[in-house]
C-alpha cells in the first residue's frame, strides 16, 4: 500500500471556509479543546506507531539481516557477509532482470500518464457521456489484477482466444500469440498493466485539472486562447507537478509490480519477463535460496525507498510554493 499526497489539494484557492477555519484554531485553544485532546492523541498514536514498527520497520531490518545470511527456509540464520550479493552480481541474471524491470515500469508509467492526461482533458472540456466514462474507466483497476491478467492471457491464446477470434473475423488470422515468444511477451503485459492503471491516474489528474481556478480559464479565453493553447499554456503547466508525482508513483508501483506479470507469464517464456520481484520470489519460494532473494529485495528496496523519498520531497516542495 502506498500513499503520497498530491499537490492539488493545496493548489485549491483558499476558500472562505478554510480561512474561517484557520481563525478558529486559536479560538479552540482558548477554551481548552486542544490541550486535553493532545493527551488523547498520544494514547491513540502510540499503538499506531507500534503496529507500523512491528509490521514495517522490523521486517525491513530482518530483510537486511537475511541478505547477509544463509537460510534454507528452516532453522537459524548463518552469517555469510556479502556472499549473497556477490552471488547475485556474478550470476548474470541480475542485469537482464534490472533491464526488464526498468523497461516495463518506464513504459507503463509513461503511457499511463500520457493516456490519463488526454482523457482528463477530454472530460474536463465537457465530452458527452463524461460522467459514465469516469465510472467505467476505473473498472479495470478495481477487479483483482490476477483475474484480469487471466482474462487477457486467455484472450491472447492462439485459435481459441477472444482477441484471435476478433482478429479472425476481420481477416487477420487466429495465430497471434505474443505471450509465447521471448521477444514479444513483455508488450501485451505492458498494455494490460496500462489498461489496469489508467483509471486511477485519470481521476487524480482530473481532480488537479478541475482545481484550476475558473477565473484563470475565463481570463485565458477572453484573451483569445483556443482549446489547444489553453491545454498547453495553462492546464499543462499547472498540472505538471501532479503529472510528475503520478509518473514517479506509477514507476515505483510497477517496479514492485509482481502480480500482473506473475499471473500472465510467471516471468517467462524463459526469463523474458522476469522483473526483479519475480526473480526474488522464485529465488526464495521455488529454489529456497532465501539469502540471495533477500539480497535482491534489499537492492530493490533501497532503490524504491530513495525514489519514494524523492517523490514525497517533490510533492511537498510543490505544496510549499
Amino acid at each position, binding site marked *: *500500500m*502506498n500513499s503520497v*499526497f*498530491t499537490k492539488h*489539494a493545496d493548489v485549491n484557492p483558499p476558500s472562505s471556509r478554510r480561512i474561517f*477555519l484557520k481563525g*478558529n484554531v486559536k479560538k*479552540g485553544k482558548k477554551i481548552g479543546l486542544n490541550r486535553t*485532546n*493532545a493527551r*488523547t*492523541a498520544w*494514547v*491513540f498514536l502510540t*499503538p499506531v506507531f507500534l503496529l*507500523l514498527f512491528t509490521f*514495517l520497520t*522490523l*521486517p*525491513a531490518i*530482518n*530483510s537486511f539481516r537475511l541478505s547477509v545470511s544463509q537460510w534454507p527456509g528452516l532453522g537459524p540464520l548463518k552469517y555469510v557477509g556479502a556472499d549473497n550479493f556477490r552471488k547475485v552480481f556474478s550470476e548474470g541474471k541480475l542485469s537482464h532482470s534490472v533491464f526488464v524491470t526498468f523497461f516495463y515500469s518506464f513504459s507503463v508509467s509513461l503511457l499511463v500518464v500520457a493516456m490519463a492526461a488526454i*482523457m482528463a*482533458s*477530454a472530460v474536463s472540456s465537457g465530452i458527452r*457521456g463524461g460522467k459514465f466514462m*469516469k465510472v467505467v474507466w476505473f*473498472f479495470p*483497476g478495481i*477487479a*483483482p*489484477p*490476477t*483475474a484480469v491478467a487471466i482474462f487477457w492471457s486467455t*484472450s491472447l491464446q492462439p*485459435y*481459441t482466444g477472444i482477441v484471435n*477470434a*476478433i482478429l479472425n473475423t476481420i481477416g487477420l488470422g487466429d495465430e497471434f500469440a505474443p505471450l509465447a515468444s521471448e521477444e514479444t511477451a513483455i508488450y501485451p503485459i505492458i498494455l494490460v498493466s496500462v489498461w489496469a492503471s489508467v483509471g*486511477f491516474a485519470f*481521476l*487524480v489528474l*482530473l*481532480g488537479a485539472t478541475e482545481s484550476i481556478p475558473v477565473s484563470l480559464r475565463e481570463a485565458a479565453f477572453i484573451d483569445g486562447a*483556443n*482549446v489547444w*493553447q489553453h491545454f498547453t499554456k495553462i492546464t499543462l503547466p499547472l498540472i505538471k507537478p501532479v503529472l510528475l508525482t503520478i509518473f514517479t508513483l506509477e514507476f515505483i508501483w510497477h*517496479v514492485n509490480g*509482481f*502480480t500482473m506479470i*506473475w499471473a500472465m507469464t510467471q516471468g517467462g517464456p524463459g526469463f523474458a519477463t522476469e522483473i526483479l*520481484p519475480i526473480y*526474488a*520470489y522464485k529465488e526464495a*519460494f521455488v529454489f529456497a535460496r532465501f539469502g540471495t532473494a*533477500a539480497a535482491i529485495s*534489499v537492492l*530493490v*528496496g533501497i532503490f524504491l525507498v530513495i525514489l519514494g523519498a524523492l517523490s*514525497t520531497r517533490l510533492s511537498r516542495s510543490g505544496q510549499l510554493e
Partner: protein
Amino acid sequence: MKSQVFRVFANLTAWIWTILAFIPFVFILLFGVKNTTDIMIKPLAIVFKPALDNFSRAWSGGVGSGGFSAWFANSLILVIVALAVSICAAVPAAYFTIFLPKKINEIVRIIIITGTTVPSILLVIPYFKTFNSLGLLNKPIATGIVYGVLAIPTTFLLMNRFFIDFPREVLEAGLVDGLSNVRIFSKLVLPLSVGQIISVGFMTLIWAWGETQIAIVLLNKASAQPIAVGVLSFVGDFSVDYGAIFAGLSLAAFPPLIAYIALSKYVTKGIALGGITK
C-alpha cells in the same frame, strides 16, 4: 485547426478507452455462462445455450483444491479484518492528532508517509519467516491483520487531512453542551465523517480483495487462499474447462465492481480530493 484536431483526438481516445474498459467484463460474465465448446468455437456469438453449471463447478472446485466457496470466504475474512484493523487504529488517531501543535502533526504525517514507501518485496520474506515460526501461515485472519496494518498509513493520512478541515465550531458546540472529548468524537464527528471513511475504506477493500504478492506466500495452501490467488491455481487445475474458469473470474471480479458502482459517488470524489492511494 490544431485545436480541433486535438479535441477530436482526445474525444476519440476517450470513447475507445471506454469500450476497452467495459467490454472485457461483459465477456467475462458472458463466458461464465457459456459452455466450453461454445467459448472455443464461437466466442463472439451472443445467442447460446446458457450453462449455469459453470458456476457450481467453480464454486465447489476440484479434488484437493479449495474451490471458490472457500476462496470467497477467505477473501471476505481478509477484507473484514483489514478494514476493522485499519479503521479502528487509524481513524481515532487521525482525529486526535489535529489537536497537537501544527508542527508536530506535520512530523507525525512525515513519519507515516515514510511508512508508505516500504515496498512489499522487502516485507514478504521476513513475513514468511516470522509467520512460519509462529505457525500463522495459512491463517487468513493473521494475513488480514497484516493487510490492516499496511492500510493504516493511507487511512491515517487521508482521514487526518479530512479532520484538519473539519469545522471547529461543531466541536466547540459539543464542548459547550458539556460533552467529553471522546463523546464529541463518537457522537458528533464520526457521523459526519461516514462519507470520507467509506471512500478510504473502499480503497482498502479493493486492495485487500486483489492483493497477491503477500497472500501467495502467507496463504499457500489451496484451502486457505483468497480469491485473487485461488484463480491462479484454479487455472492450473481446470486448464481446459474455460466455462468454469470464466465463472470463477466473474466471482473474483464482480463483487468489487458491484461495490464500486454502489459507492462510486464516494470513491471518485475521495480520490479526486484526497490524493494518491494504492
